[in-house]
C-alpha cells in the first residue's frame, strides 16, 4: 500500500515537473509582453509580474510595426490554396491508385513511395532553380505549389480511407451509368470527410508554422508570412524583448485557440499522419 502510494506520488511529481518545464518559458514570454519599456530597463527579472496586467501597448506596436496584418493575410491565402490543392490532389491520387488497374500502376505507386523517403530540406538547392525558372520565385505561388506538390503523407491518409469504402458502392453507381469522375465527386469525395478533416488540420498547422520555404522563396517584405514576419522582428526590435514577446504571443495565440477547440481531432490527425 505504502509502496504504491509512493509510486503514485512520484508519477504526479514527474507530471508536474514536465508541466512546469513546458509552461515556464511560455509564461515568461507572456509576462514580458505586458511590461513597459521602462520596466524592462529596470531589470526586475524575467519572472516579475508586470505593473499593469492589461498593458497591451506592445501588442499594438508588434501588430502594426511588425506588419502582422499582412502576414496573417498572406498566410491565409497560402493556407486556403495549399490545403484546397492538397485535398484535391491527395484524394484524386488515392482514388486513381486504389480503384483502377492500369499499366505502370506499380511504377506510379513506387514513385510516390520513394518520394516519401526524401526529406524536403535536402533537395531545396535544386528545387530553388526549378521554382525560379517558372518565375514563381518571390511570389505566393512558390510556397503554394511546393506545399501541394510534395505532400505524400496526405495521399497515404486518403489511400487508407478510399480502401475502406466498399467497391460495391462504385459498382452500383456504375450500373446506373455514372462516369468515373461522377463517382469520385458524388460518392468517394463526400465519404472521405473524416480523412479531409485530418488532412486539413495536419496540413493547416504545418503550413502555418513552416519557416523554411517562405524564408527561401519569398524574401521581399510585402510577402511576409507569420513565420518570416516574426523572424524579421530580430532586426528592428533588436533588444526590445517586450515587443518581440508580444509578437511571439500573437503568433502562438491562434494555434492555442485552434488546439483547445479541436483537441481530439488534432491528436488523431497527427497519429494518422505520422504512422500512415
Amino acid at each position, binding site marked *: 500500500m505504502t509502496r504504491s502510494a509512493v509510486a503514485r506520488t512520484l*508519477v*504526479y511529481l*514527474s*507530471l508536474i515537473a*514536465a*508541466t512546469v518545464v*513546458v*509552461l515556464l*518559458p511560455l509564461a*515568461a*514570454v507572456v509576462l*514580458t509582453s505586458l511590461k513597459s519599456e521602462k520596466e524592462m530597463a529596470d*531589470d526586475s*527579472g524575467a*519572472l516579475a509580474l508586470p505593473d499593469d496586467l492589461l498593458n497591451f501597448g506592445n501588442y499594438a506596436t508588434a501588430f502594426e510595426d511588425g506588419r502582422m496584418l499582412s502576414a496573417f493575410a498572406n498566410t491565409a491565402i497560402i493556407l486556403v490554396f495549399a490545403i484546397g490543392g492538397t485535398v484535391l490532389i491527395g484524394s484524386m*491520387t488515392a*482514388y*486513381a491508385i*486504389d480503384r483502377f*488497374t*492500369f499499366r505502370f500502376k506499380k511504377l*506510379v505507386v513506387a*514513385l510516390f513511395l520513394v*518520394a516519401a*523517403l*526524401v*526529406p524536403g530540406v*535536402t*533537395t*531545396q*538547392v*535544386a*528545387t530553388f532553380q*526549378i521554382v525560379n525558372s517558372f518565375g514563381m520565385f518571390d511570389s505566393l505561388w512558390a510556397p503554394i*505549389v511546393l506545399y501541394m*506538390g*510534395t505532400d505524400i503523407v496526405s495521399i497515404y491518409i486518403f489511400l487508407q480511407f478510399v480502401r475502406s469504402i*466498399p*467497391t460495391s458502392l462504385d*459498382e452500383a453507381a*456504375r450500373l446506373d451509368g455514372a462516369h468515373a*469522375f461522377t463517382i469520385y465527386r458524388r460518392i468517394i469525395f463526400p465519404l472521405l470527410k473524416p480523412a479531409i478533416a485530418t488532412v486539413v488540420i495536419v496540413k493547416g*498547422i504545418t503550413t502555418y*508554422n513552416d*519557416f*523554411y520555404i517562405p524564408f*527561401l522563396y519569398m524574401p521581399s517584405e510585402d510577402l511576409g508570412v*507569420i513565420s518570416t514576419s*516574426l*523572424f524579421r522582428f530580430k532586426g528592428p526590435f533588436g533588444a526590445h524583448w517586450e515587443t*518581440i514577446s508580444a*509578437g*511571439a504571443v500573437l503568433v502562438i495565440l491562434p494555434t492555442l485557440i485552434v*488546439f483547445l477547440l479541436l*483537441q481530439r481531432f488534432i*491528436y488523431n490527425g*497527427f*497519429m494518422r499522419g*505520422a*504512422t500512415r
Partner: protein
Amino acid sequence: MTDTTEKAAVQAPAGPVGAAPEPAPAPRTARLWRGATPWLFLLGPLALLIVFTYAPIANMVAYSFTDWDGVSPELHYTGAENYAELFTRSDLFEVFWVSGYYLAASVFQIVAALYFATILSFNVRFRNFFKGVLFFPYLVNGVAIGFVFLYFFQDGGTLDSVLGLFGVETDRAWLGTPESANTSLAAVSVWRYLGLNFVLFLGAIQSIPGELYEAAELDGANRWHQFRHIIAPGIKPVLSLTVILSISGSLSVFEIPYIMTGGATGTETFVIQTVKLAFQFNKTGLASAAAVVLLLIVLAVTWVQRRLVPDDKVDLA
C-alpha cells in the same frame, strides 16, 4: 453475412471494376476513355511530383559534379571534386558532429515520451490536461519557439532567474560556448518534439486491447511486467518509426539553431551550412554535393531500419 461480402469486395483487386461485363461490346472510343481515366486523375499529382521532387533530385545530382554558382549560364564539369572537398575539408565535415547533440537528445526524448505515454494511458487525474500540455509545444510556430528560448537562455533571463530561486547563482551565457550552446539548442528541440513522440506512443498503447492488461493482472503481473510484455511489443512498429524519424531529424536540423544563433558559436548544422553555401556563397555545386550526401545517408538509415524491423503488424492475440 453482409460483412463478409463487403470484405471480399474491398479485398478484391480493383481489376473487375474496369473490366466489368458490359451489356454490349463497348465501342473503341469508350474503351480508350476507360484506359485514360486513371491518368486523367493522376495527371496533376504526377506532374507536381516529377517537377518538384524528382527533377530536383536529378538536377541536384548533376549539379554536384559541377562548379556551378547557381547564376551564370555556364557549368563546368569537375568530376568528383566537390565530393573530395566535402570529405577532406574538415570544417565542412565538422557540422556532422553537431548532429550528435541532437541524436543524444532524441534518446532522452524517446525515453521520456515513452514514460509519459505509459503513465497517461492508465488512470491519472487531470489526464487530458497533462496530455494537452505535453503535446502543445509541437504545434507552436518554430520562430516563436526560437524567440521564446532566446529570451529564456538570456544572460539574467528566465533560466537564470529560476536557478536563482533555488539558490544557484549562475551568471552564464548559455549560448556562449559551443558545448553549452549546442546542449541548450538540443534541449529546445526536445521541448518542441517530445509531444509528437508522446502522442504517437499514446495512440499505439491505446490500440492494445484492454483485456490483455486484465488477464496479465490476474496472472499477477505488475506494471513493469505489463510494460515489458504487453506494451513494448505492441508499440514496436511506432517505436521503430520514431527512431528513424529521430535519426533523419537529427541530421537535418535547421530551424531552431538558424533562428536562435544563426549557426554561430559552433552550432552550425548540415542544413544551415548547405543553405549558406548555396544561397550566400553561391556555391551551388558544392552545396548540391552536400545535399546528395545527406540524402544518401537518410536513405541508407531508412533502408537499414526497414531491414531490421519488417513492416508487418505485431500480432498480440
